[in-house]
C-alpha cells in the first residue's frame, strides 16, 4: 500500500494535481510539519501547534488537494536538517508568501533578510516595513509568520533586550538563538551585530 500511495503522489505531481505537498521533519524541538506549493515553501508548523489543524487550514486557504509527499520537500528537509546541526547559515529555498499579506507580509519579508546569528528589534522591523510607529503591528506580524525558522522571526527581540514572544515557546526561541550563537540579548541588554559564521 505504501508503494501505491507513493506512486499516486508522484503521478498527482506530474499531472499538476498536487497543490500542497507536506512532510514531517525531525527537529530538536519535536516534529515539524512543512508544506510546499509548486511555488515554494508555504508553511512551517512548529511542534507547539497541532499539525492536523494546520493541514485543515492549508486545505481551506490554498487547496484541498493536500498530500503527504516528502520527495517534493527534499530540499527543505535537507536544509532544515543541516540548520539544526549548525551547518547551514542561510536557507536557499523558494518561498510562497500567499498565506500572508499587507503590512505583516512586508514585515515578514524584512525578517527573512535578517542574517544568521544577528538579531533585530520589533521597532527595527516596523521601520524596515515602512512604518516605524507600527511596533505592535510588527510584533503581530512576527507572531503570524507562516514560515518560522526559515523566515527567522526568532531573531526579532524586544527593544531593551527582552526576548519578546515566540509561537513555538520562549525556550525554543532561546535555543535557536543559542544555536546561531547570537548574543543573548536578555543578558547583554541589546541586540548583537556580531556575525558568527
Amino acid at each position, binding site marked *: *500500500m505504501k508503494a*501505491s*500511495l507513493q*506512486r*499516486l503522489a508522484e*503521478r*498527482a505531481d506530474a*499531472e499538476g*494535481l498536487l497543490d*500542497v505537498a*507536506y512532510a514531517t521533519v525531525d527537529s530538536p524541538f519535536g516534529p515539524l510539519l512543512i508544506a510546499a506549493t509548486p511555488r515554494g515553501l508555504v508553511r512551517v508548523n512548529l511542534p507547539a501547534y497541532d499539525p492536523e489543524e494546520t*493541514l*485543515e487550514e*492549508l*486545505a*481551506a486557504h490554498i*487547496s*484541498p*488537494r*493536500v*498530500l*503527504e509527499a516528502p520527495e517534493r520537500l527534499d530540499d527543505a528537509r535537507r536544509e532544515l536538517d543541516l540548520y539544526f546541526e549548525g551547518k547551514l547559515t542561510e536557507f536557499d529555498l523558494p518561498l510562497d508568501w500567499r498565506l500572508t499579506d499587507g503590512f505583516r507580509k512586508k514585515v515578514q519579508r524584512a525578517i527573512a533578510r535578517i542574517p544568521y546569528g544577528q538579531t533585530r528589534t520589533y521597532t527595527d522591523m516596523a521601520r524596515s516595513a515602512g512604518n516605524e510607529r507600527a511596533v505592535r503591528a510588527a510584533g503581530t506580524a512576527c507572531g503570524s509568520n507562516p514560515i518560522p525558522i526559515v523566515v527567522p522571526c526568532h531573531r526579532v527581540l524586544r527593544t531593551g533586550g527582552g526576548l519578546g514572544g515566540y509561537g513555538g515557546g520562549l525556550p525554543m526561541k532561546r535555543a535557536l538563538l543559542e544555536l546561531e550563537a547570537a548574543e543573548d540579548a536578555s543578558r547583554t541588554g541589546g541586540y548583537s551585530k556580531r556575525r558568527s559564521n
Partner: protein
Amino acid sequence: MTTLPPFQTLLDEHAAEVMGVLRGAVGRADAEDCFQETFLAALRAYPKLDDAANLRGWLLTIAHRKAIDHHRANGKRPLPVAEVAEVAVEDPGPADDGIWELVGALPPKQRAAVALRYACDLPHAEIAAALGCSPEAARRSLHEGMKRLRKELA
C-alpha cells in the same frame, strides 16, 4: 460552501478499503492500475465537490466505475484462461471479514460477476455487457461464484 478535509485524510481512511474492493472486482494484478485511476480521478474532481458528507461512498463509486471501465476494456479481448491460477494469499482487508479475498480467489469470470453485482451493484444485463457475454452466461457465472463462496464460508 463545504469545507473539504485535506485529501490525505481520504487516503488515510479509505485507501485500504478501495484497494480491497478493487482486488475483488478486477483481481490483484489489475487492482493497482484501477487504484491509481480511481484516486487521480478523485483528486481531479475533489476541489469542486459540493458535498463532503459521504466521501467514502464517493470514492467507492469512482472505484466501481473504474472497475467497470476495466472490464469493458477487457471484454473486447478474450479472457485469458491462463490467469485462472491465482493464489488466495492477500493482505488482510479492512472490512467484510476477508470476503473480498475469497472473491479475489474465484476464477476470473465468476470473480468479475460477483464483484460487479455486489460491489458495483450492477444488474445482470450490465454485468453481461461489461463482461461481453450473454445475460444467461453472466447469471450462471454469478451463481457459480456465489455457490463457491457459500461453500468456502460454510
